[in-house]
C-alpha cells in the first residue's frame, strides 16, 4: 500500500516537473517555428528593412531594431564592463578599505531591483540633470529619451552581474598563489593584472552574462531609449535621439493588433532567442574551463 502511494507521489513530482518544463519547451519550439517561417519568407531583407505599415500584407523588417540593440548594448558595455571590473578588483585586492564591502552590499541589493525602476530612475536623473543645468543656462548633454539614456539604464542593469562574477572569481584564487605573487614585490596593480589574467575565463563568462541581460531587457528602455521605428541617420547624432531595440519592437508589435506586425514580432523573437541561447552555451563552455 505504501509502495503504491510512493509510486503515485513520485509520479506526481515528475508530472509537476514536466508541467514546468513543457511550456518552456513549447515556447522555444513555437518561437523557432513561427520565427523561422517569417524570416525565411523574407530573407535576408527582413534583417535590414524597416517595418511595414500596420495592417499591410507585408511583414517588412527589423533592421532598425537590430541596429538599436547593437548600439545600446555596445555603449552600455563600454560603460558597464570597465566600471564593474575595476570596482571588483579594488574590492578584492584592497585589504583594509571599507569601500569594497560597501560596494558589494550595494551591488547585491541592486541585482534585485525591478528593471522598470532602473529605467524610470535614469529618466528621473536625466530630468534632474536638465533642471540643474538649465538653471546655469546650459543644455543637458544627455536627452531624456535617447540612445545614451537607454545605454546608461542597461549599464546599470548589467553591472551587478559582471561585478559579482569578477569578485567571486578573484576571491576564488587560492591564497598560496596570491602569496607567491605578492611575495615577489608585485604592487597591487601588477598583482591585480596577473590575477585577472589567471581567472580571465571566469570574468569573460561574467561579461557574457551581463551582456546577455542587457540584450534581453525591455523595461529599462521604456522611459529612456523610448523606441524608434526608422533608421537613425548614421552620425553620432543618433546617440542623442530615441532609438529602438529588438525587445521594444517585440513588445510593441506583439501588443498591437496588426497581424503583420505580430508576425514580425515572432521573427524578432526568434533572432533574440537564438542569440540568447547561443550566449548561454558560450558561457557554459567558458565556465567549464
Amino acid at each position, binding site marked *: 500500500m505504501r509502495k503504491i502511494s510512493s509510486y503515485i507521489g513520485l509520479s506526481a513530482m515528475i508530472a509537476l516537473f514536466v508541467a514546468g518544463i513543457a511550456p518552456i519547451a513549447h515556447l522555444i519550439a513555437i518561437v523557432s517555428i513561427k520565427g523561422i517561417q517569417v524570416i525565411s519568407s523574407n530573407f535576408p531583407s527582413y534583417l535590414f528593412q524597416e517595418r511595414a505599415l500596420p495592417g499591410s500584407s507585408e511583414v517588412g523588417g527589423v533592421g532598425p531594431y537590430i541596429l538599436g540593440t547593437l548600439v545600446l548594448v555596445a555603449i552600455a558595455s563600454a560603460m558597464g564592463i570597465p566600471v564593474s571590473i575595476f570596482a571588483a578588483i579594488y574590492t578584492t585586492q584592497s*585589504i*583594509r578599505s571599507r569601500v569594497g564591502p560597501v560596494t558589494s552590499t550595494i551591488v547585491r541589493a541592486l541585482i534585485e531591483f525591478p528593471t522598470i525602476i532602473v529605467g524610470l530612475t535614469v529618466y528621473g536623473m536625466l530630468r534632474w540633470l536638465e533642471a540643474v543645468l538649465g538653471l546655469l543656462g546650459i543644455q543637458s548633454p544627455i536627452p531624456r529619451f535617447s540612445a545614451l539614456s537607454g545605454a546608461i539604464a542597461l549599464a546599470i542593469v548589467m553591472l551587478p552581474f559582471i561585478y559579482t562574477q569578477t569578485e567571486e572569481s578573484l576571491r576564488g584564487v587560492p591564497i*598560496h*598563489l*596570491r*602569496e*607567491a*605573487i*605578492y*611575495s*615577489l*614585490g*608585485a*604592487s*597591487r596593480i*601588477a598583482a591585480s593584472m*596577473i590575477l585577472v589574467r*589567471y581567472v580571465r575565463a571566469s570574468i569573460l563568462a561574467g561579461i557574457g552574462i551581463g551582456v546577455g541581460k542587457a540584450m534581453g531587457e525591455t523595461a529599462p528602455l521604456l522611459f529612456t531609449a523610448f523606441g524608434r521605428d526608422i533608421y537613425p541617420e548614421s552620425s553620432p547624432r543618433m546617440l542623442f535621439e530615441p532609438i529602438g531595440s529588438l525587445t521594444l519592437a517585440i513588445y510593441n508589435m506583439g501588443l498591437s493588433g496588426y497581424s503583420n506586425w505580430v508576425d514580425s514580432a515572432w521573427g524578432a523573437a526568434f533572432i533574440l532567442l537564438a542569440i540568447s541561447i547561443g550566449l548561454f552555451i558560450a558561457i557554459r563552455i567558458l565556465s567549464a574551463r
Partner: protein
Amino acid sequence: MQSQRGASIEIKSLRVWLGQREVIRGISLSIPSNTVFTIMGPSGSGKSTLLRAINRILDIYPESRVEGSVYIDGVDIYSGRIDPSDVRKMIGMVFQIPNPIPNMSIYDNVALGPRINRIVRDKKELNELVKWALERAYLWDEVRDRLGKPAGELSGGQQQRLCIARALAMRPRAILMDEPTSNLDPVATAKIESLITELRKILTVVLVTHNPFQASRVSDYVAFIYDGRLIETGSASKIFTRPESELTEKYVTGRMVS
C-alpha cells in the same frame, strides 16, 4: 657575480594579532647579515607569523594587526612612508608548500619577479638572470633543456627549488623560508639544506622549521620561539649544546612534541 652584502634585520618589540588572538607577544631579535638564522619552535608557536612580519606579507591578510618595528638595514619597514611591495622586492620568500604558477613554464616562473618589477633591460639580461638563479637553486642542470615546459610537471623537490630560484631572481638581500622542506622526502630535503648553506654567501637567510635536527644542521644562529614569545636566542653551537632554558633543552633534544 660577486657575493653581496646581505641585509641585517632587527626586530623590536613586535606584537602581532590574527583576529582577536595575540600570536606574537612582544619579540625582539637581531639577525646578522649573511648568516643562516633559524627561527624554530613547535607547531603553533607563531614562527610562521613572525617570518611573515619581516616582509610585510602579513599585510595581505585582512585579520592581521602589527605593532612594533622591523628594521632592515636600519630602516623601519613599518613606518608610514614605506610601500610594502618595495620591502618584498628586497626580501624573497619561499613557502612550505611549493607554489609555482602551475601552467606557466619553468622559465616564466623564474622570470616572473623581474618581469613584473621591470628590473632587467633586455632578453639577454633576463636569460642570464634566470640561469644564475636556477644555478644557485641547484636546479639548472635538471631543467636546462626544458625551460619551456610547464612548472607543474616537476617533482615536489624540484618545484620547491624552482620557487627558490624564483625568489633569487629578484636578487634579494634576504630570503625568508617557511618550513621549505617539511613536505619533501629526505633526498630533496638534503639538496635544499646544502643550497641554503651556500646561499649565505650572497644574502641573509631566515629559516623557519619545526624540526630541531634540521635547525642544528644548517644554522649559524637560532631563535627558539614558544607560544608567541622568544625563549632564547644565540649562536647555533651554544643553543644546541648548552641551552639556558629548560624549554629550549626539551625542544632541541627532541623531547617536545611538535
